Each structure stands twice: as structure tokens, then as C-alpha cells.
């Protein structure tokens, strides 16, 4: 049919249309659309099609970690389903239908995560939040409006993106008292904080998280001060990655070294390009997900279950 189908454009369009959509869901959704448009005629063609589209998506989008989580999950789903059905037509039909079901479920998972997180927020709490996260926002908003919990929130500024201001604005709209602090004031306020909530770009196999830069130092401070550090996230953000150090993320190390040597004068780019870091599992108290409240080590269990069933 239409050969001019562009996976990247579809993906970006999805993100544009729905501000609440996360990257992995958008990726899965655009892949489902792609399948519907392209109508592959054999299973190998289907698999190749999905593979090539995933590759173009991964390479064309700069920040591909949570995106790749969704893509890998969908690929896994495709591979399992093609083996399941003997009849090609029903297989294809099922794939598209189930793909949509998959997307719907993934969308619901944010609310589910928030549901599990509600008991964690109590009256008179002071909660430190880093950067903007849709799940954390949903959780806090529901705690305020549904449970009528009275708590206050401290949001970090979250350089270089400055998403902390956006988070503060949205929370103020939800009638929650908010205070914005600069990123390097975390140590100053941590004594008065009761708990820390962060979202995640991706959850690594060890149970550590890949998140907005600065999460790692907050994690360290939380550990030293014995403050609980909770991660609120959806299970489709579990990725098959296992970074060893905070800067051990795909593509980020090399860039850091290169820029350090070649573009020393151009310090602007150094400041603005690094948006993610890795917080290893020992700093995380628990992960609040749509599968329930998990310890970091339970993540690998869930991942193994998904991949080796």
C-alpha cells in the first residue's frame, strides 16, 4: 500500500498528539500501525520489517533507552506470536489486535503504578521529587485529590532541561504546595525530607534506574541520610541493559571523552548534552510498578519471566 510510510514521523506524531504518552508506548503503537499499513505476506517478511523499523527508530531518535525497551518488548511479542499460530492470516490478525490490546494495557499501567504508590504518601510528608515524571505526577495528584493527603513537595530545578519548573507548575495547578530548589541544594534540604520519589527512563536488569541526570547523586545522599528512595515506573520500561557505572550508558561514554578533548572551549554543549545517568540498585529502596511494589532484585526476575517463558 503506502510505501512512503515513515516510522519516525509516525512515532513523533504520536508523541506530539498526546502529551501524556510515554516513548515506549508510542513506539509500540507506531509499530502496530506500521504492521497494519504494510501488510506483510510472510512471517519472515514480518519479522524483517519489524526489525528494520525498530533499527531506524533507535538510530534516528537521540534518546533511545526507554524507546528501545518498548521496541524490544514488541519484538519479543511478535516472535512469540508467530510461533504460536500455524495459520498465517489469523496470526496477522491476532498480532494487530493484540498489539492494540498491548498498547491499551501499557497505557493503564501508569494508573496502576500510581495505585500501588498511594499508601506510601502520608499526611505531613515532605517529598523530594527530581525532574518531571508523568507517573510521579499522577501519583501525587491522585494522593491529593482522591485521598486528600496533605503533603508538600520539593522539586529540583533539574538542569539542563529545567523540567523541574514544569513539574512545579503542574503540581501547583493540582493544589499541592511546591518549592523549587536548585540541583545542588539537595544536600541542604535532605535532612527535612521524608521520602524521595523519582520516575525512570528505563529500569536496568539489576534493578537500577536510568533517569534524568542528577538522580544518582540524590540516591547517594538518600542512602547516606537513610531516606527512602522510591522509583515510580511502569513495567514496560524494564530494559535489557546492565550499566556498571553512572556514565556507562550506550553512546554516552564515548561522547563524553570526545567532547572533553576536542571541544573543550565549547563548554555549552558539554553542559546540555548529558541528560541521563544510571543509579545502581543499592541506592533504591523499592520500585513502585504496575506489577506491585518490587525490590530491585525482583526486576531481574520479572525480566527473566518475560524473556524466557
Amino acid at each position: 500500500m503506502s510505501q512512503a510510510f515513515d516510522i519516525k514521523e509516525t512515532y513523533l506524531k504520536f508523541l506530539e498528539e498526546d502529551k501524556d504518552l510515554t516513548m515506549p508506548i508510542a513506539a509500540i503503537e507506531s509499530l502496530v500501525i506500521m504492521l497494519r499499513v504494510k501488510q506483510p505476506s510472510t512471517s519472515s517478511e514480518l519479522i524483517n520489517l519489524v526489525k528494520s523499523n525498530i533499527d531506524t527508530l533507535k538510530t534516528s531518535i537521540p534518546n533511545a533507552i526507554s524507546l528501545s525497551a518498548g521496541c524490544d518488548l514488541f519484538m519479543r511479542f511478535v516472535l512469540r506470536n508467530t510461533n504460536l499460530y500455524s495459520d498465517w492470516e489469523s496470526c496477522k490478525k491476532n498480532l494487530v489486535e493484540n498489539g492494540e490490546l498491548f498498547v491499551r494495557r501499557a497505557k493503564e499501567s501508569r494508573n496502576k503504578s500510581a495505585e500501588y504508590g498511594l499508601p506510601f504518601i502520608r499526611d505531613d510528608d515532605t517529598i523530594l521529587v527530581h525532574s518531571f515524571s508523568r507517573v510521579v505526577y499522577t501519583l501525587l495528584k491522585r494522593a491529593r485529590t482522591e485521598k486528600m493527603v496533605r503533603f508538600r513537595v520539593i522539586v529540583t530545578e533539574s538542569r539542563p532541561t529545567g523540567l523541574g519548573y514544569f513539574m512545579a507548575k503542574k503540581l501547583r495547578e493540582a493544589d499541592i504546595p511546591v518549592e523549587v530548589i536548585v540541583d545542588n541544594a539537595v544536600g541542604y534540604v535532605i535532612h527535612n525530607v521524608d521520602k524521595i520519589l523519582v520516575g525512570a527512563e528505563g529500569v536496568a536488569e539489576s534493578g537500577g534506574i536510568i533517569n534524568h541526570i542528577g538522580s544518582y547523586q540524590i540516591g547517594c545522599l538518600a542512602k547516606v541520610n537513610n531516606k527512602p528512595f522510591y522509583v515510580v515506573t511502569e513495567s514496560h520500561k524494564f530494559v535489557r541493559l546492565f550499566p556498571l557505572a553512572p556514565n556507562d550508558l550506550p553512546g554516552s561514554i564515548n561522547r563524553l571523552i570526545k567532547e572533553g578533548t576536542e571541544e573543550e572551549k565549547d563548554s555549552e554543549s558539554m553542559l546540555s548534552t548529558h541528560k541521563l545517568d544510571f543509579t545502581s540498585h543499592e541506592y533504591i529502596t523499592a520500585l513502585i510498578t504496575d506489577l506491585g511494589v518490587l525490590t530491585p532484585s525482583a526486576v531481574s526476575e520479572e525480566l527473566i519471566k518475560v524473556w524466557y517463558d
Partner: protein
Amino acid sequence: MVEEQAQTSQAKPQAPAQVSDSQKAEKAPAAAADGASKGSDDKKLSNKEMKELKKKEKAAKRAAQKEAIGISPEQQAKNAESKIEKKKSSATNTNLKKQLDQTLIKDQGGKRIPAIFSHLETREQRNASSPSISHIVHPAILSLTLKYSTYKIVGSTPRLKNMLEVFKVVIRDYETPANTTLTRHLTGHLSHQIEYLKTGRPLSISMGNAIRWLKQEISHISIDTKEQQAKETLCEKIDDFIKEKIELSGQVIIENASKHITDGSTILTYGHSEVLEKLFKYCVIEQNKKFNLIVVDSRPLFEGKRLLTNLVNTNYNPDGEGLDSEVESIASSRSIKSQPITHENLKIHYVLINSLSSTILEDVDCVFLGAHAMLSNGRLYSRVGTGLIAMMCHARNIPVLTCCESVKFSDKVQLDSVTTNELADCDDLVQDINSKKPPQKKSFALEQFIKQCEEEKESKNKNNNKGKQQQQKKSSPEPDAQADDSTPLKDWKNISHLNILNIMYDLTPPEYIKKVVTELGALPPSAVPVILREYKNT
């Protein structure tokens, strides 16, 4: 059993005339029931082993009785020996020798291990444990046992692989005796072979897992299958097992782990591991990476040297595809381009474990460790010294990675390296202090034979020239002193209060390990039980 007894005892008063009969009748079912209950207790024991067990029990009882009467254990031993010799006049030569060996060993006493490790089996005890089955052991097993005990084959993976290959030979040569089926008899036959194999060295965890798998496979064969066909399917299954669990999983692990070796990085490794050797070769040959490798080694096995020589002997053609020197040494000598991988791409430092200092660890990016087993509490059971390295690197914030196939996963829980370990020969530590070569070992039987000959000589000397003995004693200290100069511990067995401990493995706590790379993916050590669970289900 109780009911039967009750019935017979009820029968007693009713028929007093038949007392003797009823007593007999009472004894018989009781004994039968007793036997049955025993049989159910340890079903795993074969008939033969049962008999042996009973024999031993009887012997122990008799010994106790005799001792009560006043016969010393030494006399008992002598009596027993003479009895045995009478009995076994018809037995094979090897059997006799074995029996003799056993008595020789006990003279030696072997209490030279620190008390905390005294529960572990020494080499002598291992060799003495199953002397009576050597005549039903397949020759291939005999040679394999020898290779194990002389460290010709070391390392969990090579040992597993070789064992499975030998099992294939055993299965091919096996013939089911009359009145039994292959499914029932072969397991027992294999058990005997394994029993003998254990006298070389204790089974590794991976071997235990593979044996369990193989026995299960044998039991799944239907009785109606023809023998030849059953044997063939078993051999095929073993081949598949080797391919799937060792070779392919090694490949997957290598691909996964190679991500952590980047251009210009410094990697540290300890000893020798099959997977890691392949990993380093793969990174150079296939991925064209240049990196530094620090090989840490230790006495007495010097496995790091093996890694070193294997790497040095690997050639590589920078322009074309990689060449393996062992296969194409002639070709490589012709073409000028191919050169050893250590020439440009791989820089190796070789150090001993006691020189592991701050300067060496300064710019290490990553540590790769081999594994003997992963225990279900996330602890790594590996060559002694691994724990030390992991601890040092953890203290310096260097990530410690271990590569481990899932056959090596064990559901055991162990908290220290004392409860279960392997004692190697103490002489390995005493000899070869110049460290030029790994311990050269004689086979155990040969050692015993030499000892026997020497003793015979001595006894002859004693009988023939008792008068000369004192002179000999006087003259003997001088050459001894000379020998002492060269190796001060040569005579260590006669020095009282000197214990020498040569332990094979240690345990690394999970805190020190960042990541376990398996064929199922990379995991934190806390996820080992998950693998065990999922792995067992499939």
C-alpha cells in the same frame, strides 16, 4: 510390619506346642520387613552397595566385641588381613593390590591438615574409599580419572566436557546383562564409573548437574526401545548437551561480555577460564579491539600461565579474518601478515597474586572472573584466590564481572569456604618452589607401588644386616643435611606440628560481584535463584 508381629505373638499362647516354629516365623517376617524398610530408606544404593554396607556393619560389630574381649585393634587388623588374603586368593591382581594400598594408606595416618579442615576428604582417603570396583570400571574412565588427578584436565568446563565424551564411550561399549533392561541397569553401571571417577577428584558442580541430567534421560527411555537404538539416542543427547549447554552458551556469554571490553581499556583476570580465554580471543580477532590484559596467577597450579601461552600462541591476521595458530600454523608462517595477537592488539601483564598492589590496580577498568559454580545465595565458588581479588577490586570501585554458564548453577547454599571444599595434595605446595612448572604428579597407584617396594627393601635390610643398621644411622644424617639445604621442607611429614593446607576453592560474597553474565543474560548475583527456578522448570 507391626501387624504381622502382633499376629505371630498372638499365635504364641494359643499353640504352645509350636513355640519353636512360631518363633522362627516371627523372626522371618521381621527380618524381611527390616530389609524392606532399609531398602526404602536408601533406594539409591544398589544391591552390591547394600551388601558392602552390611558387611561393614558386621565388621564394626565384631571389632567392638573383640576389643571388649581384649584383642588390640592392631592384632585385629592383622587377623583381618590374613583372612582377606585367604579369601581373595581367587581375586584379581588389581583387587589385591588395591587392598594392600588401603592398608598402606592407613599406616600413613594423614592427620596433617589443620583441625578446621579435617572434615574434608584428603587425596589418600579418596583413593581408599572405593577400591573394590576397579575391575568393573571402563578403561576410558580409568584414564580420565588419572588425567583429573594429575591436573592434566583442569577447570570446570573442560572436566565436564571430557567426562561427557568418556560417558559416550562407556555407553557405546555397554551391554545390558540378561534379565535386566537398559533403563534400569545402565544407571547403576554409570554410578560405579562415577564412583571411581570421584577417586581422582571430587565431582564439580557442573559435572553433578550433567550426571543428574543424564540419569534422568536414561530413565526416560522406554523399555521397548532396542538397545542399540537407545544407546545411539543417548549419545546424540549427550552431543546436544555439550553443544547447547557448553559451546553455544559460551558463545552467547562471550557476545554479551565483549561489550564491557572497549578499545584501550584495561582488564584484569585471574587464573584460567575456558570462556574468558575465548572472550579475549574473540575481542581481538573478531572485534579488532586493542586492550590491556592483566593476568593474575597463583601457586601451585599456575593456570594463568596456560592462559598466557594460549593467548601468545594465537595468531591473527589484521587485514583478513582471524586465524587460529593451532590449526593453521603452517599457513601463518607463510603469510607475513598474520602475527600473534599479543604483538599489537593485546598487551599482557603477568603478575602473581601476592603482587596485586595499588599500582597494578590503578587503572583497571573491569575484572573478569571465571567460575566453578554459582551458589543459590549469589556466592561465587571458584579457584582459591578469587575472593581476594574480588574484595580488593570492590574496595577500589572496580566492577567485578563473572562469566558463568547455567550448568554451573547450584541450588546449594554455602556461607563459608570451609564446609565444602576440596583438599589437594599438600606436596604440591612443598615441591617445585622454583615455580618453573606446575606440579608433576605420579599416579597414585605408582606412588603406592614405590612405597611398597621401599618397605620391602627396608625389611630385607633389617633381617639381613641388623648389625650394620647402627652404622647406617650414624652415617645417614650427613646426606640428609645436604638435602635440607636444597629443599628445607622435603621431609615435612616427619616434622611434628607442621600442617600444610592446599585448598582448591574459595567463596566470594555477592556484595563484591557486580554482574553475572550467563547465557540467559546478565544478572546481579541476587538473581541466581530466579535462574535456578526458571531453568529447572524447562
